[in-house]
């Protein structure tokens, strides 16, 4: 933070300072551990001091509680995994440790990553550091809030339909979701396997990209992993000369808040000022994305979550018979949103309904993939606001799932297409109901495996936008 040498250092710069010997790794970890420990946003579910004598080569990482961490409790925000301590590390976590980046702690999240506000955590909501009466977004809300509040230098999250980009936007930081397959899913607790992807949070595009370069890579333990061919290097672009950015105007017409629309329009002007070209494009099927997503994701979730039965690990609610034990464990272990999606997904896969629901949703998914392919034959990147609005109040949307789901309207299509996308801060805007200004996110999307092009342009735009505000008081009250 301002005035604090270590807190003011970027995560990349912290690693360099430790590498050159200017900074002591153990001191750095102690500094961040204290900040994580003092945090009052409910962003962390647990913190870790690491092992004495561990190699520290860079800034420690806050890790979403969806990643299995050997010896450290892992709950995925659910009661059903209460007390579960995995006997193994997720591949992404393993890569952090192997690189010498300590685990700072496990961050709060919507239960099994199902949610857009972090209000679905069994361990209480995370508060938005910009306004404690508002949500930080979700499902990786704890990671986003921790970084925004200065309680972590950077963080890992996962994005299934927007769970990195949306909280990054609502917390005023950078969130990067790479191509599906870029980071191994091994040890990342499954929500919707064909959509789940590990990504990163940072205060800058460079930090988010640096952390991604640590965790990406082909993993023999994940048959769907590919890594990013050619890897990632630190972005250096300072302009957008020769870059064409497509804007799906029709898709953006639905209910974007005025403040968000204004920041988005300014961002497009900045693109042109940097030498880039704006072109209108069409994504004719993108508006069907939410509907398809809410069939595919629950369908996969319904089978992924069947393993939680109280027998081998986690919560067990005792009962007289096995079936009753199953029922009570699952009844008490899962929250209402998770149950809603298990029921939706079970129904969508049942005999006689499969074609009508899952089959149709997969066809829509294919159409969306083709929409993006057609668009990327004309443009290099696609820009949208990350979310239709700024952070909303705690409890404002909990009784209306559909309005909650619409938060992900602009982020879901990229997840369905498996393409990389990033959210960078585009400034602040006043919420429709008035009050202090809140962060707005700009989303850029690129073709599969074009992460380098994506972060170059995002880096150039970020510098030109020059967003450098931080929430007052941060995470420490």
């Amino acid at each position, binding site marked *: 933070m301002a005035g604090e040498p270590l807190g003011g250092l970027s995560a990349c710069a912290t690693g360099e300072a430790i590498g050159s010997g200017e900074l002591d790794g153990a001191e750095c970890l102690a500094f961040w551990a204290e900040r994580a420990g003092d945090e009052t946003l409910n962003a962390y579910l647990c913190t870790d001091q690491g092992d004495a004598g561990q190699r520290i080569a860079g800034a420690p990482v806050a890790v979403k509680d969806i*990643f299995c961490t050997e010896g450290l409790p892992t709950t995925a925000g659910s009661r059903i995994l209460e007390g579960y301590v995995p006997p193994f590390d997720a591949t992404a976590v393993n890569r952090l440790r192997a690189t010498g980046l300590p685990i700072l702690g496990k961050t709060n999240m919507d239960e099994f990553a199902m949610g857009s506000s972090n209000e679905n955590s069994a361990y209480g909501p995370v508060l938005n550091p910009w306004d404690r009466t508002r949500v930080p977004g979700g499902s990786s809300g704890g990671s986003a809030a921790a970084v925004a509040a200065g309680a972590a230098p950077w963080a890992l999250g996962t994005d299934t339909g927007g769970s990195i980009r949306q909280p990054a936007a609502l917390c005023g930081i950078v969130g990067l979701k790479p191509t599906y397959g870029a980071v191994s899913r091994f040890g990342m607790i499954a929500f919707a396997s064909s959509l789940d992807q590990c990504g990163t949070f940072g205060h800058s595009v460079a930090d988010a990209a640096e952390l991604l370069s640590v965790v990406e890579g082909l993993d023999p333990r994940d048959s769907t992993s590919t890594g990013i061919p050619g890897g990632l290097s630190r972005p250096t672009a300072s302009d957008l000369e020769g870059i064409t950015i497509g804007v799906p105007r029709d898709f953006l017409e639905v209910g974007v808040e005025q403040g968000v629309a204004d920041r988005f329009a300014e961002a497009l002007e900045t693109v042109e000022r940097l030498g880039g070209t704006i072109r209108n494009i069409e994504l004719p099927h993108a508006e069907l994305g939410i509907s398809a997503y809410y069939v595919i994701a629950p369908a996969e979730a319904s089978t992924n979550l069947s393993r939680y039965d109280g027998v081998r690990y986690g919560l067990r609610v005792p009962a007289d018979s096995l079936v009753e034990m199953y029922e009570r464990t699952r009844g008490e272990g899962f929250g209402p949103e998770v149950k809603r999606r298990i029921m939706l997904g079970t129904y969508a896969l049942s005999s006689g309904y499969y074609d009508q629901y899952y089959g149709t949703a997969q066809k829509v998914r294919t159409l969306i993939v083709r929409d993006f392919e057609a668009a990327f034959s004309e443009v290099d990147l696609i820009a949208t606001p990350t979310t239709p609005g700024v952070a909303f109040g705690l409890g404002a949307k909990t009784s209306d799932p559909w309005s909650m789901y619409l938060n992900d309207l602009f982020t879901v299509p990229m997840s369905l297409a498996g393409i990389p996308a990033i959210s960078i801060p585009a400034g602040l805007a006043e919420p429709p109901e008035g009050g202090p200004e809140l962060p707005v996110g700009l989303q850029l999307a690129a073709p599969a495996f074009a992460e380098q092009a994506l972060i170059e342009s995002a880096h150039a735009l970020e510098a030109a936008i020059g967003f450098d505000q931080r929430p007052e008081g941060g995470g420490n009250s």
Partner: protein
Amino acid sequence: MTEGLPDDLEAVIGLEIHVQLSTETKMFCGCRLSFGDPPNTHTCPVCLAHPGVLPVPNRRAIEYAIQIALALGCEIAPNSIFHRKNYFYPDNPKAYQISQYDVPLASAGELADVRIHRAHLEEDAAKMVHIGESGRIQGSSGSLVDFNRAGTPLVEIVTEPDIRSASEAREWGQLLRETVRQLGVSDVNMEEGSLRCDANVSIRPRGSSELGTKTELKNMNSFRFLEKGITAELERQAGLVASGERVVQETLHFDPGTGALHPLRSKEEAHDYRYLPEPDLVPLAPDSEMLEQARKTLPELPEAKATRYRDELGIPEAPAELLSVRAELAAFLEAMLVAEPDLEPRVAANWLTGEFAAELRRKGDPELGEVPVEAAALASLASMAQAKKISHGTAKDLLTRMVDDGIDPVAVVTEEDLGQLSDSSELEAIVEKVVEENPGPAEEVRAGNEKAIGALVGAVMKETGGRADGGEVNRILRQALGLG
């Protein structure tokens, strides 16, 4: 007619066979396969279905499955798909089994005139042990789960309903087992469960082409019980039809002890498996190198071997079939033919599967390597008999001594002067003597009772110490008695 059925009815039977592959490790994780090890000693987060784990297919299991598919003459799908088969049960830790559904690895094959519908790869469930005397879940006070078996690679083979009798089902099942055994991809031990067989059974009026309502006989642990179970079920179905009742689709368990059939669960209550393409795995696309390698390493399989032995080597049907399903006997035969190039395969096969097999039974059926008889020695013996250098009786006596004491038959024939009497005048003298000493039988033969000649042949053989050729003795005797 078919056993268990009246003449106007026909049995329609299809088999579903699960083959556990004898890979070193499990289908989707690195745990060792074991049988009989202490429970839950071969487990890991993957086969215990911890949160966040992912399956990684076992390459060797895929190679083995392809070998089975090729051996069954199947077409291999260029891109087959793994599916999740969802069902909630304590033996199924993920609550879904990774299997194949609408695009299996292999389809459209045939083995011995029974068409193969499909063959696909999947993983085995954990083993449940029910506490209590019966060992069954009914009345048990609790159940234990052993995850050592969870994730064992399985190939499920499904036939078309082409089998028409219980005995044909047994014979075909045995042929399939030998075929898989000779590929070396499974232990095919039914008692240990490394080969499991279910049968779909229905009946219909003979000549009809429609399928009747079928019942499923589950988990037969031997092909003999399979045959008995199918016979019992065919009788039950025929009885229902005879009394004007209908066959109800259901799953049955056959108790080989009592011969009774018990319903397990009816299909109406069957699970909705909510099949879903497995998002954690990519399509299974064996490359041409993998297929070529599998084709190259395919051994000669029983069906082809039986045909070759019969058609090319002139070995009669029964020994040809026996040799085709007993790889070690076939290898012994081939070694005999190499040792004695002039030995006729038919003669060699008869000695091997006839007299030699009988000697082995006498010794309590030891393995071939456990008796001191080399293929070359048996071949020398058979050769001497074929060339009439020794009589059949001498050869049999020698064989007993070979099996008991490991004697060298060629050396013993020389040492003990056991060579066949080929000198007619010597034999004629003996015949004359025997006729004189046995006037009774001789007179009977002369009076037209030709069967009485047997006693005289026996006496000649006794006189020559078994060294005479039976045919020759007969000829000279008949001449001497004026029957010539």
